[in-house]
């Protein structure tokens, strides 16, 4: 049973790992430009597994800002993982042992989270481990290669590659939006409000990490009030 779940995780992890390779490749290039060695860049990716968090961190490192600034920036940029973990906690069996929780927490990324919550019933930790063992090397190795050899590629190619990250987000959101009209509406409203937040004076100067949190809380709360999930539905989502 666990082995089967592990294999299924690997199967789901392959496209994630391949996508990660492209995204982290551009991250590696940015790390190199900031002055990190290929090994340091790979180490950063191995220990953090967070695209936006790592890009933001490179900005902090480049500016030579303090360690507290680093901690604060990472909290803001990665705060969405707190919400994701809350959501994921409901997918775990309440009897799941602590070391499984410690291991799963290591690699809660946007994509692994999205695939994990869309599983039927409770989440078997071995499914997540299966995803991790292919997705994580894609992320770490991509960062390494990007830092070591990214300079060879012309800017037009690396520019195009930086779309891959958003492509991965879209591939998680759209299939659910297609099946569920409420989610479709939420996606459209989220993008419109986010676009507005980027244009309105004063609001547009808020850091992007905070904007994500503010919009997430407001829109999700509004959706939860307007379209509360039915008991069976929510049980299924929470099982």
């Amino acid at each position, binding site marked *: 049973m666990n082995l089967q779940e592990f294999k299924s995780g690997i199967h789901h992890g392959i*496209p994630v790992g391949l996508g990660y390779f492209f995204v982290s490749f551009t991250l590696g290039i940015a790390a190199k430009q900031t002055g990190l060695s290929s090994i340091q860049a790979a180490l950063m990716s191995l220990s953090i597994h967070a695209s936006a968090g790592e890009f933001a961190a490179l900005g902090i*490192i480049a500016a030579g800002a303090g360690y507290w600034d680093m901690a604060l920036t990472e909290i803001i940029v990665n705060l969405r993982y707190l919400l994701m973990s809350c959501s994921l906690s409901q997918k775990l069996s309440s009897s799941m042992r602590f070391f499984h929780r410690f291991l799963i927490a290591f690699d809660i990324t946007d994509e692994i989270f999205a695939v994990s919550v869309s599983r039927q019933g409770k989440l078997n930790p071995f499914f997540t481990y299966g995803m991790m063992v292919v997705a994580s090397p894609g992320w770490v190795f991509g960062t390494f290669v990007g830092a070591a050899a990214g300079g060879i590629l012309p800017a037009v190619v690396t520019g195009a590659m930086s779309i891959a990250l958003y492509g991965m*987000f879209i591939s998680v959101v759209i299939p659910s939006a297609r099946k569920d009209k409420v989610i479709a509406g939420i996606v459209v409203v989220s993008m419109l409000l986010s676009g507005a937040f980027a244009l309105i004076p004063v609001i547009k100067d808020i850091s992007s990490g905070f904007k994500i949190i503010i919009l997430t809380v407001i829109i999700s709360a509004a959706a939860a009030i307007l379209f509360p999930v039915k008991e069976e539905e929510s049980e299924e989502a929470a099982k």
Partner: protein
Amino acid sequence: MKNNIYIYILVMAGVTYLIRLLPLTIFRKEIKNRFVRSFLHYMPYVTLSVMTFPAILSATGNVTSSTIGFVAALIIAWIDGNLFKVAIGACGAALISQLIINLI
């Protein structure tokens, strides 16, 4: 770069890990509240949508090729939904359109 890279990495790794770990260890029982459950049900889609748009429009450094990549991703995701196909398709569409823009 006057500070130590490894301490930077340690700080960001520690903070990020705690953010991910705490909810998993604190909320070990099922949450009964319907509002909270609905909130957590919708939240991932909101976060991912907000992170995508409008940031994607400046991804390649050119609004036109970025928009074409965005639209390509939406179409491929609607038809297929495979994560890798969407990512590659969006990159390919952005690359081709950017090359054409550079020629013009």
